[in-house]
């Protein structure tokens, strides 16, 4: 990376360098069948967990991937980490496809998991937990020749565990939930990554503790220039921390754009529905989508949201003459406002007064 322009102000977010690009990502899970049925040659149903996801992650930004359970947000995150075999599409890191040997890549892209208690080995001390990443990557000195102990201490104090040496010999069970999540974050930071992928990083924490962990993530972005993907079901959280929000439904991004646009001026009816159920005073008067979370083994034809879509259900789609397309023609994201994309025929109409070809 060039350091020539240190004094120049950072370019606007949409012109910044792309760190990770996801192109038409597809992940399929094969359902299982019983032994007898298997011998008869019957195959389990396929579940298209991620079904054509594309987006770019720019350096230094925070992107929230949001949606209901089963929408593919966690699978997308895992695929980006190389933790999930991919059935189609590409993931590019700084312009290059992921190499066969993922070790150097994993050093630069680190994951923070949801459940800190399950992530930390209960029999390791905090020091061992943090140093393990360094040892796996064969790092015994820092860039300026610092010894391991100093690197571990730096990671802990960056994660807000101060003074760090007080934590070295402690075990995870001696720490509170918030502190454990900080240890997980320190474990990711010790390798000096460029990107952090955080899967529901605060959903297992007490409400009053969440803010602190989110503040920490914002500070790390500020101080270290980290790029962050946050997977969350909580749009309020996306509002507080994300620069951009991507709303996923049944394995696709159905709307993506700057957080203000997506959350305050949503284009897609699914985004609107999600925003309508965010609890707040009087919120129960608003419409709620019926039905259970969608099933990725049976992705509907046409727009995948049409069976639950209030625009189709209310007859408005028919009025506008787009109902047939909603029901039969699959569609891709289109730009609504600069940098704000959505995949909805009604939104397309609103945008240019006529259905696109």
């Amino acid at each position, binding site marked *: 990376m060039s350091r020539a322009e240190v004094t120049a102000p950072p370019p606007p977010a949409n012109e910044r360098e792309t760190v990770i690009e996801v192109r038409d990502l597809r992940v399929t899970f094969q359902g299982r069948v019983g032994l007898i049925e298997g011998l008869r040659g019957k195959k389990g149903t396929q579940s298209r967990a991620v079904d054509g996801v594309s987006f770019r992650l720019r350096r230094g930004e925070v992107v929230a991937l949001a949606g209901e*359970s089963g929408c593919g947000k966690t699978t997308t995150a895992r695929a980006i980490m190389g933790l999930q075999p991919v059935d189609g599409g590409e993931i590019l890191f700084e312009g290059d496809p992921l190499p066969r040997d993922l070790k150097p890549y994993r050093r630069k892209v680190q994951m923070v998991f949801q459940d800190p208690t399950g992530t930390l080995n209960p029999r390791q001390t905090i020091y061992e937990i943090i140093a393990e990443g360094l040892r796996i990557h064969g790092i015994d000195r820092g860039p300026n020749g610092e010894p391991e102990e100093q690197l571990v201490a730096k990671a802990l104090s960056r994660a807000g565990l101060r003074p760090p040496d007080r934590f070295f010999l402690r075990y995870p069970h001696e720490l509170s939930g918030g502190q454990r999540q900080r240890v997980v974050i320190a474990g990711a930071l010790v390798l000096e990554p460029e990107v952090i992928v955080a899967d529901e990083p605060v959903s297992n924490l007490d*409400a009053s503790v969440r*803010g602190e962990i989110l503040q920490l993530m914002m500070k790390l972005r500020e101080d270290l220039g980290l790029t962050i993907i946050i997977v969350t079901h909580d749009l309020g959280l996306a*509002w507080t921390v994300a620069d951009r929000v991507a709303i996923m439904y049944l394995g696709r991004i159905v709307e993506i754009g700057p957080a203000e646009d997506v959350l305050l001026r949503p284009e897609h009816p699914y985004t609107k529905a999600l925003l309508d159920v965010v609890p707040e005073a009087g919120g*129960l008067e608003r419409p709620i*989508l019926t039905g*259970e979370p969608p099933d990725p083994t049976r992705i509907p034809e046409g727009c995948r949201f049409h069976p639950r879509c209030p625009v189709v259900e209310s007859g408005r789609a028919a009025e506008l003459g787009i109902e047939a397309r909603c029901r039969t023609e699959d569609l891709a994201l289109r730009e609504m406002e600069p940098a704000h994309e959505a995949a909805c025929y009604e939104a397309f109409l609103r945008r240019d007064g006529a259905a696109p070809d």
Partner: protein
Amino acid sequence: MSVLEVRDLRVTYRTQGGGIPAVRGVSFDVDTGQVLGLAGESGCGKSTIAGAVLRLLPASTKIEGEVLLEGENVLEMKPGRLRAVRWTGASIVFQGAMHALNPVKRIGDQIAEAITVHQQAGEKEARVRVGSLLEQVGLPTRRMQDYPHELSGGQKQRVMIAMALACSPSLVIADEPTTALDVMVQAQVLRLMKELQSELGLSMIFITHDLSVLVETSDRLAIMYAGKIIEEGPAETVFRSPQHPYTEALSAAFPEIGDQRFRGAPMGLGGDPPDPADVPSGCSFHPRCPKAFEDCSVTEPQLYPAGEGRRAACLLVPAAKTTTGVGT
């Protein structure tokens, strides 16, 4: 008229390491047809209160104070009377609906059991009642033939609600009824509970850590911290203009989308909720309180009047000054 009056309730769990005071002197009323929201973080004692009201806690637990359910003290009931009161006097919807149902019994039979055991109704009568209960919670009657695994999470929670209503109790306690559910299903279940509540005029205690859910469902709010109520009042005003710094922090954890104060600036508290076995002196919140001053570590605040129908346990409440003589 109050369905439930709780007076100076104290609950101490006995462990090998000594007693752990989970609830340390809590008093509140639930008025007929009203919903009381009980909020707080893990370990604050909110679920213990639910357990104490129905006496579902381990036998070794020490429970003091009074729990008057329609005027009768639950804590002094003989086992036979207690069994009669559970489900008919007060019922509970637990948080893990997935695990609260018997996996090898049809759901219709499970609901019917609650009715026949408690109301001496015949099999046939019970059947009819089960059918209408299922309809009430938005499930088709034929689902009574289903086993729990055939239902989704939201449907199971509806069955739990039907079961809680089976004997027309005077009080329903809902302990984190939607925590394990997806956002959309959570909204559906909340709406159902709200509709049933106003249709049937139910009196309810709604327990959750999610303050935004409580504002939506409750008439009054009581915020708990370290085994005590630290603020109470009408739900909307407590959430919108908290008097206690802890309530303020808790409500900031559920920011409203569009509120520019929170954009790029998550708000949180330092530290962690206290260990019930080792509660700080004075105001139990003082080590985490951004507004704490010297006296807070010494003087334990009581609930002082703090506006119309409101009380808050903070030395910064103007009424505290006259009561304690503590200057700010």
